[in-house]
């Protein structure tokens, strides 16, 4: 494994990797900086921006203009709520498919994934009309339902690949030792399943937080999550770079932090275990 690497080579790679990393990260860094500038300074040339004074004004103004707390809570309720409901439906299903696989389990899994292939726009009209007729437009409960269904196939797949790795022999051994079904589930399966469930939870909160088709179509104000809160800045209006930056920073910060924690699980989760 350990290859000898010359110091020069390592130095060059270090410089290149940092340069590329910085370039990719730069837009995010830039909005964090602009959020702490005044509107007049935020539109200046990059160097002038850096040397201008720092201020918290934009954060205050964003707060005055729209209720960040409300949209933040909507995002939390929508992403966490839909993920929890999806988990409640998916855990038994994935569990059964992993531990009691039948002849058609694989077909069933493929079919579930194929429902993800249906473009949302194909059902936009009926969904919109149903929401309108049931008075669900701009309501959190309706959107929780939609986000649950959107992510359900992914949740089932992720859980399935995690559960699949729990060895069946361990259950047989426990049974030999006289463990009952309750003890089996409580002391053996649960501890082994919890890490998989936790990373599924984390990843789906991220996906639901950033979902920007249904949240934009079906909400306007009261149930609007942060995706919609930011979209309200899409029509230009005087000077607004600093406000937009402050609002953007507040919209992405929670999930950025959560995302960094989950990056180890991200790959296998998002590729349904196909890449580990």
């Amino acid at each position, binding site marked *: 494994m350990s290859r000898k690497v010359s110091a020069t080579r390592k130095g060059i790679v270090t410089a290149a990797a940092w340069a590329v990393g910085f370039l*990719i990260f730069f837009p995010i860094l830039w909005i964090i900086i602009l959020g702490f500038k005044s509107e007049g300074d935020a539109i200046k040339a990059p160097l002038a921006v850096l040397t201008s004074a720092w201020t918290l004004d934009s954060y205050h103004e964003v707060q005055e203009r729209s209720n960040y707390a409300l949209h933040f809570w909507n995002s939390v309720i929508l992403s966490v709520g839909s993920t929890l409901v999806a988990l409640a439906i998916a855990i038994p299903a994935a569990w059964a498919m992993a531990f009691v696989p039948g002849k058609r389990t694989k077909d069933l899994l493929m079919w579930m994934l194929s429902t993800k292939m249906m473009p949302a726009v194909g059902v936009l*009209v009926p969904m919109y009309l149903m929401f309108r007729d049931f008075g669900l437009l701009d309501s959190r409960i309706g959107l929780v339902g939609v986000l649950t269904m959107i992510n359900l196939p992914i949740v089932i797949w992720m859980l399935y690949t995690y559960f699949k790795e729990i060895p069946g022999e361990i259950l047989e051994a426990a049974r030999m030792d006289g463990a009952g079904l309750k003890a089996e589930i409580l002391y053996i399966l649960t501890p082994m399943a919890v890490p998989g469930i936790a990373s599924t939870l984390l990843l789906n909160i991220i996906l639901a937080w950033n979902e920007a088709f249904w949240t934009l179509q079906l909400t306007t104000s009261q149930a609007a999550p942060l*995706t919609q809160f*930011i979209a309200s800045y899409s029509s230009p209006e005087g000077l607004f770079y600093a406000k937009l930056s402050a609002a953007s920073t507040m919209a992405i910060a929670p999930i950025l932090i959560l995302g960094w924690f989950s990056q180890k699980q991200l790959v296998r989760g998002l590729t349904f275990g196909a890449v580990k």
Partner: protein
Amino acid sequence: MATEHSRTAARLMVSPAVILLFLWMIVPLAMTVYFSFLRYNLLNPGMESWAGFSNYTYFLKQAAFWDALWNTLTLVVGVLIITVVGGIALALLLDQPFFGQGIVRVMVIAPFFVMPTVSALVWKNMFMNPVNGMFAHIAKFFGLQPFDFLSHAPLASIIVIVAWSWLPFATLILLTALQSLDREQMEAAEMDGANWINRFIYLTLPHLTRSITVVILIQTIFLLSVFAEILVTTNGGPGTASTNLPYLVYAQSLLNFDVGGGSAGGIIAVILANIVAIFLMRMIGKNLEA
């Protein structure tokens, strides 16, 4: 282990998920199909009448449809090329030993967590704006004329924005795959005198095939329905220069209130996505068996 009893229990455990997904898939879709055969405008409720295939012929005959179809494919293929090629290059770079791997990894992956409305608005205003954007400032610094990206190259600009969001995903997956590459095989090839191009073509690339497939599959699912980025940057314009199929259906049904026409467009989008899906599912199905 699987007794008759546990089979029944298993069926009971799977059924809520299956029933819900089935309803979710079939009910709205059936309604879309039904609406697509109606003359139905939201501004004239109660005036619905049978339209036969006229919505379809209307939708397919408008020039906007062909533009949108072309734009959809360009967007998907453009972003795929940038992210797969860029992802391979980045993964190869980050796979080398260097100082601060953890921090660089965190920086590279960050854009993936940025919600589409934020990334699109930030690129549109802070970078691509022809007056105050950073690219305009840089152009002015070098005495060049600032370029109005979103007016003159709207689709290309959106491709760049979307690619920025997806490059981390491709990089991370390909990097993970690279790390499971057999180093000894690599060294053996090196000793046998294979240069890095040959090592890349005959060892690295075949090893990455499976993960590249996965990247393409998953990204295609999401890229076929790019919407928010277009809504907040160009609104599909100028003209139809950056209208893709999802945006066209949205415009038809919720901006023009033409439920029938929009539904026909939705069904066409579903059919197209299914053609892509069948092709892709075969690929991933094969890979998952391996």
